[in-house]
């Protein structure tokens, strides 16, 4: 088991290295650098001035040197001030050191956000915290509801309850966040006026009034999928021999479901819930933009829209890490929950 986890962690590190390199390459394409230079300099600058801005801020160094600097394997050099010829800070708002130092992701320095004029760490981690709160409430809503629907539907396959709930969960998987968000806002905010169509005030304090719509919108897309997986797993368990035996012993249907079927039927949904995180990530971006909630997704969109190189790299590192770590947890957890499967 331990060697399996270690091997998986190794693959994970390799995957992250490859992916960040791809992201690094794509963000540093010539048109993107041009866009960054234009947005960072005054209006109507000439092509030479743009070029000199890029050179002065170290964007014209060798690709691998810059990637190494970001990683922390190559020392970051202070830039040379063209006027005085002395070393100067690359971005004054980030307090870059004036001497050559190793300071990259491996040393815990995520770099400097050109859009927000602050260090990436000071923007990224509070945003992650805000998204964490959102995710927590989404899971609190999503998991019990979807498991309940799945179990009720799968308990008696082919019954009327099963058919109604199955169609309902198919409908919910057909409703992406930007659709359900709009519909919920129309119904609950514009029409009934019960809830707030914007979660911008949620950064000060979360209330039922401003936080329900984002949570509902995010949860609804996942509910259908998890419920369908739970149903499939429940249906399979209900056809097993030991369920028939328990019924023939004279146990009531309810107690068979709760005591014998549930525990076996809930193994598969665990994996599904863990693998749902990467999907939730896209949803988070949509929902945070739609309801103006200042979390991770909002930061990602701001970074991508303004070609904020270091911030976008930080965001992609975090999201890729989340995807990979949830995959690992789902594999390890599955082996723990299901004694029939042992990792070789």
């Amino acid at each position, binding site marked *: 088991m331990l060697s399996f986890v270690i091997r998986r962690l190794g693959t994970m590190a390799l995957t992250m290295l490859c992916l960040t390199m791809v992201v690094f390459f794509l963000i540093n394409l010539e*048109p993107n650098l041009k866009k960054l230079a234009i947005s960072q300099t005054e209006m109507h600058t000439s092509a030479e001035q743009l070029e000199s801005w890029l050179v002065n801020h170290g964007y014209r160094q060798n690709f691998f040197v810059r990637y190494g600097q970001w990683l922390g394997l190559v020392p970051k050099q202070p830039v040379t001030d063209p006027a005085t010829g002395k070393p100067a800070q690359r971005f004054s708002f980030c307090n870059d050191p004036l001497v050559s130092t190793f300071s990259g992701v491996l040393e815990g320095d995520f770099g400097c956000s050109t859009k927000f004029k602050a260090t990436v760490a000071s923007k990224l981690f509070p945003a992650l915290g805000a998204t964490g709160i959102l995710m927590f409430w989404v899971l609190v809503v999503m998991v019990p509801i979807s498991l309940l629907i799945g179990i009720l539907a799968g308990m008696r396959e082919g019954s009327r309850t099963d058919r109604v709930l199955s169609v309902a969960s198919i409908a919910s998987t057909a*409703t*992406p966040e*930007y*659709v359900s968000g*709009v*519909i919920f806002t129309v119904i609950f905010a*514009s029409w009934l006026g019960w809830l707030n169509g914007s979660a911008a005030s949620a950064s000060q304090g979360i209330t039922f009034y401003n936080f329900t719509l984002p949570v509902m919108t995010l949860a609804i897309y996942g509910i259908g999928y998890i419920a369908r997986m739970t149903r499939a797993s429940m249906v399979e368990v209900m056809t097993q021999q030991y369920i028939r035996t328990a019924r023939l012993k004279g146990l009531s249907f309810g107690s068979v479901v709760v005591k014998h079927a549930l525990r076996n039927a809930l193994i598969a949904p665990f994996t599904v819930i863990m693998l749902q995180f990467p999907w939730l990530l896209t949803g988070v971006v949509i929902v945070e933009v739609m309801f103006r909630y200042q979390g991770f997704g909002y930061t990602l969109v701001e970074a991508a829209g303004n070609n904020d190189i270091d911030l*976008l790299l930080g965001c992609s590192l975090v999201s890729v890490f989340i995807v990979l770590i949830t*995959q690992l947890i789902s594999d390890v957890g599955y082996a723990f929950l299901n004694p029939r499967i042992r990792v070789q």
Partner: protein
Amino acid sequence: MPVQYISGFTVVLEVLSRFWPVWIALLIVMGASFAYKKKLALYGQLFDSGVGIVGVGICLFWLFTAIFAATISPFDPLAQIPIMKDVLPGAVEPQSGLTYLFGGDKLARDVFSRMVYGSQIVLIIAPAATGFALMVGITLGLPAGYYGGKIDTVLSFLANLVLAFPVILLFYLLVTPGIMDTPIPYGMAGVFFLFPIIFFSVLFWTRYKNRPDRLYILLGITLILGGWIYLGLVFDRDPLHIVHIDPNQLNIFVAVVFASSPGVFRIVRGLVMDIKTRDYVAAAQTRGESPWYIMLWEILPNARGPLIVDACLRIGYTTILLGTLGYFGLGLAPESPDWGTAIKDASRLLRSFIHPALPPTIALMSFVLGLNLLADSLREQSMKD
């Protein structure tokens, strides 16, 4: 001059009558399917369950809407008639006497016509991109599952690499106006669009190797047709000027294929690993058939059930992806009538007007729902056999 309104009931009647070509086409196709349902194999069995009928009905409805869009929509989806800005549903346009059935949006365009024309964009890109993703996934998944070993390790690692990318980040990196100046989208298109040609060439080669009369005809058709479309799509150098794709549509197309082919790859790989242990595969191996013959003519036909179901779900998922792209304003032109862009435009103004938001959301939802219902009943029917 104030804008005249017609009543809600008349709006409903008018909308229904606007769709007349769709109703006729639906009636013909559904009627024919019912009449010959015994002879239509899997497709015919769909008509045994209510869910299947609804699924087929919704999908065909949007298909015919896309085909007859020009007849159905009363207005040009891009035309702006200033007096109709933000009008409510049922407003009559004074000059032509036609009605803005679902009202006008903030740029005074007809919401109904835009919804109808939006179906065209979705119904061209989503199935086509899914088709290419299937080709890529199958062509790579077959050898990975069949040979295993090094090929499998390398291809699976690459697939997991793409799958570990959050879709939204991938789109923000791959679908930008800047990337059109670099050769990256064209390079990717060049690689992806090669797969169907390779697939069909190998398909025919393995089967008709010893029958040159058939082989040369089929290979010739594949190479000429494939090469023609390839020239048109990748280099935009179609000598006849029929096959043409806008650079930004090509960009979207490539990004969507790139995002969804690893999923197909994983499914195909899993299916092949399962099927290759069967007796008929062993029999073919004993006969001395070549590995590619076994993969394409023994294994692939037996994997078709799950693949068809997956393709249905995937078209729906691609529709959702296209909507996401539109919602973030990536790739598609800002005035494009596709549903995602329409939802984005309308959702910013929900506080003042809700009517421009509802038609595209309901259209997108119903189309994806139709595909999901179709996939569900296909799965059920194929499990019965």
